[in-house]
């Protein structure tokens, strides 16, 4: 903290607390309150019920949780594999190539997600590339949208890796595959895990493209929430939102612990 005077620090903390409170916490708090509310007529909700959660845990809502998790994991794993592969391959191509191709990788994230969904819908509506109405197209849409982040994260990790480690390894007799598995990947593990976490979180919250392509049997959480609130069922939507937040946070916190073990960097 760069502010040293007592009152100055107090002011800075107050502003920070207000900002965080209003911008980040207030909307969540409202949703949290709504998810337990029996009724909400005035300024504050009234009554307490777990009914919305019970509804969310069964039937269509339960399916949505599963669809979201499956899509998130599948798309993130795919994005991680291809992003890591691309980052490794581009690194070997020298700086000029990797910059150009690196930019290409980020194009999808610059296009509005709705348009990405629309593009996929049109592109895969004909045989032999007929994917419309399948689960695959949802995973594909998520993959397209998040792979840039996997690529970016892993690239950043590789860029920070001093060449010495890999050079010493190959000098000692490690072939490229062995070196990749035992030296390169463990050393960039924190970035790989961060890439996965970010991809997964993005996928869990993805709505724009999913709305365009999802088949009837594969309704993800954001689509379900959107549907519920659109029909006026704000309370159930809020309950589902809390489940979405809970699932995503649990996974991210779990991931947070992983790289520490992988890279052997304790305390």
């Amino acid at each position, binding site marked *: 903290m760069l502010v040293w005077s007592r009152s100055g620090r107090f002011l800075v903390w107050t502003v920070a607390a207000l900002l965080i409170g209003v911008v980040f916490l207030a909307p969540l708090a409202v949703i949290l309150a709504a998810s337990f509310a029996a009724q909400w007529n005035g300024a504050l909700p009234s009554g307490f019920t777990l009914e919305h959660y019970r509804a969310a845990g069964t039937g269509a809502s339960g399916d949505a949780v599963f669809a979201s998790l499956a899509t998130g994991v599948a798309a993130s794993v795919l994005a991680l594999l291809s992003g890591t592969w691309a980052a490794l391959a581009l690194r070997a191509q020298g700086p000029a190539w990797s910059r150009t191709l690196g930019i290409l990788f980020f194009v999808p994230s610059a296009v509005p997600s709705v348009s990405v969904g629309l593009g996929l819908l049109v592109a895969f509506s004909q045989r032999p590339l007929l994917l419309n109405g399948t689960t695959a197209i949802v995973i594909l849409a998520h993959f397209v949208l998040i792979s840039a982040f996997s690529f970016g994260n892993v690239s950043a990790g590789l860029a920070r890796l001093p060449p*010495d480690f890999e050079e010493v390894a*190959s000098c000692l007799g490690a*072939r490229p595959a062995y*070196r990749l598995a035992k030296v390169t990947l*463990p050393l960039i593990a924190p970035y790989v895990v961060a890439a996965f976490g970010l991809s997964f979180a993005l996928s869990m919250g993805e709505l724009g493209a999913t709305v365009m392509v999802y088949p009837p049997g594969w309704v993800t959480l954001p689509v379900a929430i959107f549907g519920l609130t659109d029909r006026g069922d704000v309370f159930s939507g809020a309950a589902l939102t809390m489940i979405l937040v809970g699932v995503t946070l649990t996974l991210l916190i779990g991931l947070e612990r992983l790289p520490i073990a992988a890279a*052997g960097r304790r305390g």
Partner: protein
Amino acid sequence: MTAAALGDGRTATQDLVRAGAASTVGFDKVSVAYRGAVVLKPLTLEVAAGEILAMIGPSGSGKTTALRAVAGFVRPVSGRIRVGGTDVTDLPPYERGLAMVVQNYALFPHMRVADNVAFGLRARGAARTLIESRVDDALGVVGMRTFRKRYPRELSGGQQQRVAIARALAVRPRVLLLDEPLSALDAQIRRSMVEEIARLHADLPDLTILYVTHDQSEALTLADRIAILKDGALCAVGRTADLYRRPPNRFAAEFLGRANLLPVVIEDDRSVGGMVAVRAGADRLLVAGDGAPAGTRRLLCVRPQHLTLTAELGYSNRIGGRLRQVHWQGELTHLVAEVGDSLVRIVATRLPALPERGGAVDMFFAPGDASLIPEEAGV
């Protein structure tokens, strides 16, 4: 690599390099360029088997580049590199049978000491029992057995350096490449590590070592031969003592041991016991001749510690000058005298009386302690 039984009377240390039997390293007109810029001009140099060759030179002179070419991390634009008679120019690093220790050690932070040392053997698919005994030997050689369970970050700089050497020795390399292995250590540890490397090489006489450093005292202490690089070109190479006593050119003389260089003219080229007479200003001196005829201009090279301020037996050459600086430093006194247009540095271990600054001073040296080198600037 096959599992070989240990023991049979050898010491563990000797056994460590047995499979790697002494190898030569040959640079044959090796030239390296980065994006068109030549940073290593065609280099031809032979490193004998079991020898420590130190490559020294100022920063950016291409030392690391030459080493990286041997390791296979950069491809020469021309020339061939041989290791033990095999042309390795087209082989990938992992097929060259070498080992390298770099400036910051590059110990794998996610592996314990023992796993770091075992790395090369595991990479080559060695048998488990072999790995265990080799790791134990290698750690024993550098005195790090008790640290095998530690992570690199739990070690001091000197300990990390030892582990890095053990990791390199464990694969029984044909040649050990060291790139400024001590530069990250402080002066005191560096001195003791130099001694340890010398001891290590005495224990492993078959190990060929290519040692890159910009520290001339490391090179003088360790190396059998020294190669001096300047601006990507080999400027001098020779046995350590020879190169020090008779530097072939101005750069070698100044870079290795900061010699004094005085312009002289050969006065009489009739050699008497290898000595010729030269004139430096008003003084006539006898020094080892280099075959040049009378009238040739030369630089007289004499080391600061070979000059005394008292006439002693054998110190038959006398140069007159004027004392400019006196720095008493306890054991040693550093003096600077002006001789003609040149400055001459003197390092004296004992002085009868501290001479007056600004006064006239006579400096003496033995004919055998001086040499003549060509006068042209630069190389």
